[in-house]
């Protein structure tokens, strides 16, 4: 079972979870989904990319 902690919807398969349109208006596979939930997410992502580029 896969449950979305944002909208509490449950799905038999992970694919079902990944492709549902959440209360954010986006799917969990969409970058906008995370940026809607957490305004810090773009900065978190940029930091991750910066660390990756240094390696």
């Amino acid at each position, binding site marked *: 079972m896969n449950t979305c902690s944002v909208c509490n919807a449950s799905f038999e398969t992970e694919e079902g979870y990944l492709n549902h349109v959440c209360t954010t208006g986006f799917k969990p*596979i969409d970058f906008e989904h995370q940026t809607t939930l957490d305004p810090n997410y773009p900065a978190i992502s940029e930091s991750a990319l910066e660390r990756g580029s240094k390696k």
Partner: protein
Amino acid sequence: MAAATVEICETNGTTGSPTINHNITNTNMGNVESVNLDPVVYPITPGNRSYAKYQRIHVTNIGTSSAINNLKIWRTGALGGAATHLTNAGMTTDYTAMTSFVTPVKTAITDVDNTMPVTTAPATANLGIGGDLVTSLVAAGYSDYLVHQIVTDAGDIAGSTSTMSYQYDETA
């Protein structure tokens, strides 16, 4: 360029009937096996352990990036009383990969015996992918399980609030 989309998931339930709770918003530890638990309702009994948490970093979409790796886990903030925070996460030989979910317990777990790093990120990766600390995710997928547990002392009378950090590097 499209950056990867990443979330934290917690698995609950039993070995034969797990539920993956995606995109969790907290990692409250307590005396019940549940995601997003209320620690006031389910406090750890002094002298006992919390139920272990089984959590993973989940890349839901790799975007145009080529790799996610170098996973680092740590905590910021003191624990209540003489409590300790144990985990399977660890650098180099301290790491014990847990790639399968088992029913969480509130007793000691073999190899969940490293002290959670505190305040600053560990120098090198301490959570693996595919069973080791050097593999990368190159498509959507999961890290190994981060298993962690609070161990209280019989004299502990108060809990605490602290912050868990889950860090990854992303290569464009």
